[in-house]
């Protein structure tokens, strides 16, 4: 008898990308073909919004991620990659404090230093020997640019990064040719559109540390742009051939003082900040225009945009067809969480001597955790007082039927989205033809301000029937004006300024959601669903089945679809 090794397989190398900014940590794992096999923000796993200072290779989260990928810590090799090259706290540069308090900047730099130093250490806890582990560090903006390239449907593009702060500044321009990235320039110094928006958020009475830039963007629709103030705000920054610079500290102080006259105190009525929000958003757009119009390349119609500023969907919706670009592509994860993917890809490229950034085979944003298999048993125990049905094979039709009765249903299906938007796998859904349903969701389910908009899903093939400036928006990256004729049909997803931050779906990429839209078309006449993230205000998107059921139990949500099981509250007459 001969002995045969039962588990023989060649050693595999895995590329573990870690977002080490200090805020929004995340991990991503690429395989030996450069495909991202798993990616998830730490905040989902620990259920703590933004997960400040928490290790992106959080040991239990990492263990889960390796298991999902089929990695073997006992024999495989791991190349760890961080999303920063330098440790900011180690640089002897006095902190620019004219826009934001120095303490916040120093705090984040302290967190970044810790995460840079500890990156990948938790592999040791899982049985990876030190000799099978190495760590690489990559330029922060290059990580953003690589992430954008991975999801982009083109091989040649202008690849622009705009954020709060990078290695040396807050803007970098790359040229992508045949998926090879070359840096054209980067701006040095504190001049930053991200910092500008954080400052604006503060003066509107919100807190950028809580990620409340969204609230400013939503509030802007209710305000009027004040021309004199607009003129002042655009004076804060200049863009010399795209490179951003703040004006001098004395002028900043003068503009800051003027802005305070329009500012809203944190406890004051929200609408007190509407004119400043509108004016600030308009100033942001004017400044971003200066950068983008400086980066066009002859014969290159596609712009890739990433960095935290690429979450400004209101502005994003205005780019295509202007400023020298025909199309805009924003990845599903343009902010610092997404850099975990870029770092993993750059590690793959360096380790295997590849020059081109790999392209995602399906551009899928669904790279996170799948609900666990013990679902059925949990549902049985959870069912006390609730109605549980196995709706396998017909869940889209069943959920659409409930929505058309005015019910609001959460869904937790398949792998979670990577990035801040819920795209139908961790979503709360409703029928937007009901006029009162937006207020109900804001007040009774999400627990947030009544003015805040809710977003639509529409079929990609019909986007022109519903929106002006029609374009694909698979990751909910752009806000567009609804066509006048359809606004009254779907009142709960039309914002105060007549716009919607849309997600487009096609039967090929999103069969379940496409089926739901078809079912809604049959009942309401409109193939449009209201889609908002499955969370309550201040909490990250639901991660486990328990999280989803807790939201059901503690809010006005009518039911939750967890994979094939629909758990509902009884109908109260």
């Amino acid at each position: 008898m001969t002995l045969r090794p039962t588990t023989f397989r060649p050693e595999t190398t895995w590329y573990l990308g870690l977002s080490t900014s200090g805020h929004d940590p995340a991990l991503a794992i690429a395989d030996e073909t450069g495909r991202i096999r798993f990616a998830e923000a730490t905040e989902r796993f620990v259920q703590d919004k933004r997960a400040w200072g928490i290790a992106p290779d959080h040991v239990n989260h990492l263990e889960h991620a390796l298991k999902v990928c089929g990695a073997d810590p006992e024999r495989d090799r791991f190349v760890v990659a961080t999303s920063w090259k330098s440790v900011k706290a180690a640089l002897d540069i006095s902190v620019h404090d004219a826009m934001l308090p120095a303490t916040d900047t120093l705090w984040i730099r302290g967190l970044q230093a810790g995460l840079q130093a500890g990156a990948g250490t938790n592999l040791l806890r899982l049985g990876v020997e030190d000799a099978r582990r190495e760590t690489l560090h990559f330029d922060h903006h290059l990580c953003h640019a690589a992430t954008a390239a991975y999801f982009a449907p083109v091989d040649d593009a202008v690849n622009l990064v705009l954020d709060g702060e990078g290695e040396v500044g807050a803007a970098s321009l790359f040229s992508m040719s045949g998926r090879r990235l070359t840096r054209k320039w980067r701006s040095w110094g504190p001049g930053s559109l991200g910092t500008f928006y954080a400052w604006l958020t503060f003066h509107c009475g919100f807190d950028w540390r809580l990620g409340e830039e969204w609230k400013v963007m939503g509030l802007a629709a209710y305000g009027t742009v004040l021309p004199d103030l607009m003129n002042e705000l655009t004076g804060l920054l200049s863009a010399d051939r795209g490179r951003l610079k703040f004006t001098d500290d004395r002028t900043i102080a003068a503009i800051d003082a003027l802005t305070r006259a329009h500012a809203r105190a944190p406890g004051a009525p929200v609408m007190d900040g509407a004119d400043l929000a509108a004016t600030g958003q308009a100033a942001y757009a004017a400044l971003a225009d200066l950068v983008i119009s400086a980066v066009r390349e002859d014969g290159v119609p596609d712009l890739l945009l990433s960095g935290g500023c690429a979450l400004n969907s209101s502005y994003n919706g205005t780019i295509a067809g202007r400023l020298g670009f025909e199309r805009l592509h924003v990845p599903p994860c343009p902010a610092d969480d997404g850099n975990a993917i870029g770092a993993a890809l750059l590690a793959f490229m360096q380790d295997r001597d590849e020059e081109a950034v790999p392209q995602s085979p399906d551009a899928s944003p669904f790279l996170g955790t799948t609900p666990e298999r013990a679902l059925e048993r949990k549902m049985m125990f959870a069912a006390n007082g609730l109605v549980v049905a196995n709706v396998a094979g017909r869940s889209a039709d069943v959920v659409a039927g409930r929505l058309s009765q005015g019910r609001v249903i959460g869904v937790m299906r398949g792998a979670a989205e990577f990035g801040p938007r819920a795209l139908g796998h961790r979503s709360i859904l409703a029928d937007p033809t009901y006029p009162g349903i937006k207020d109900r969701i804001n007040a009774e389910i999400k627990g947030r301000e009544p003015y805040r908009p809710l977003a639509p899903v529409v079929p990609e093939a019909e986007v022109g029937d519903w929106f002006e400036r029609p374009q694909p928006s698979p990751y909910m990256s752009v806000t567009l004006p609804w066509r006048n004729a359809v606004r009254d049909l779907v009142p709960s997803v039309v914002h105060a300024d007549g716009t919607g931050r849309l997600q487009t779906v096609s039967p090929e990429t999103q069969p379940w959601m496409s089926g739901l839209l078809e079912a809604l078309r049959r009942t309401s006449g409109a193939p449009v669903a209201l889609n908002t993230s499955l969370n309550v205000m201040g909490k990250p998107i639901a991660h486990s089945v328990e999280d989803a059921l807790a939201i059901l139990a503690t809010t006005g949500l009518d039911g939750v679809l967890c994979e094939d099981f629909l758990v509902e509250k009884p109908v109260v007459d």
Partner: protein
Amino acid sequence: MTENATRNDVAAFLTRRLAEITKRDPSAITGSSVFVEMGLQSIDAVLLCGEVEDTFGIELDPASIFEHDTLDSFLKHIDERIAAQ
């Protein structure tokens, strides 16, 4: 362009810009001039690095201008970066 020409170009560029930023006569700036003693602020040093990158098409390490406190030392570092590309 020879390496010497490049080095002379960078030296001339830095001397001119340092003179403008610190408001002094270019002839007063020598290879052993110490940046801090010239009154160069850290924000200006950072922006100057960006100008060097743009003008000469190289990538500088953000720490470099703080690790090299004289013009000669910084120039030597830039030479190494150019040679490494």
